[in-house]
């Protein structure tokens, strides 16, 4: 009790330990598991990252033609880094900066994208099955 009393009074004349965060820039440690960045050139759309993702934050939309899309949802990701480790081509890199908060307007409609990805995957699977069936019948 007495010690804390003296410490409290001493603290009055010491510098506070607070980091004035938004005004003072903060640099995360090296190796902090932050945002995931994607390089288009290296990606082959093998879907390994999507399958490795625990929380389903990566969806790959493969439309009928050559148009393919890699979607990552920052507010669904749990930042475990499993997708980065699973990528065989090094197309995914984990930056050391954390994602910033977003407002209502900037948010992706994730359930819509989930549905869409599911539909596209189903179609793609069906096509694959049909092709295999054709090959077998031949």
């Amino acid at each position, binding site marked *: 009790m007495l010690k804390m009393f003296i410490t409290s009074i001493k603290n009055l004349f010491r510098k*506070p*330990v*607070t980091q004035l965060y938004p005004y003072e820039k903060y640099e995360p440690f090296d190796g902090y598991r932050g945002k995931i960045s994607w390089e288009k050139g290296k990606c082959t759309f093998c879907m390994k990252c999507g399958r490795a993702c625990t929380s389903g934050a990566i969806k790959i939309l493969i439309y009928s033609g050559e148009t393919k899309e890699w979607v990552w949802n920052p*507010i*669904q*990701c*749990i930042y475990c880094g499993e997708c980065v480790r699973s990528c065989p081509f090094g197309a995914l890199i984990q930056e050391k900066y*954390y994602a910033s*908060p977003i407002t209502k307007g900037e948010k992706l409609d994730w359930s819509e994208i989930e549905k869409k990805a599911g539909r596209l995957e189903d179609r793609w699977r069906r096509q694959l099955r049909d092709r295999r069936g054709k090959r077998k019948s031949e």
Partner: protein
Amino acid sequence: MKIFELGKAKSPWILHYNTGSCNGCDIELLAVLTPRYDVERFGMLNKGNPKQADILLITGPVTKRCRERLLNLYLQVPEPKVVVAVGTCSCGGGVFRHMYNVENGVERVIPVDVYVPGCAARPQQIIDGVVKALQILREKGRALEVPPHLKKIVRGREGGIDRESLLEDLRRR
């Protein structure tokens, strides 16, 4: 008046509710109050009382038992109020998405204004989120200043939001 404008976004009192998160974000929320980050710089106090709160910080993917409590808390906070979903699981479910006892995220129950990502959200991210929430709080405060001759109409329209109808809506889902 300009002097009234000052008070709008300078003293957010927070209410924290855990709707089934892993405690990770909750302890980071407590850590935000401690000397290293000290959000009392922005006048933020952990009031823990919905009637005196301005900002609701909600963690967790909203389990089915929690949602009525969450709605109750939301309705008890006087306007203007801002809802901040802290952490991945309150934004969209995170790893709990599509589990059987979970509503995927806070937005399914009450309107959310700011989404703070991260699992668990860092104190820096939470501070960023609160700063963003303060801007929204200021805007919402302005929207409340309705001219007096329109007040009657507005009040009539807002009377439509009552607890029973919202609960009914929840049950139907």
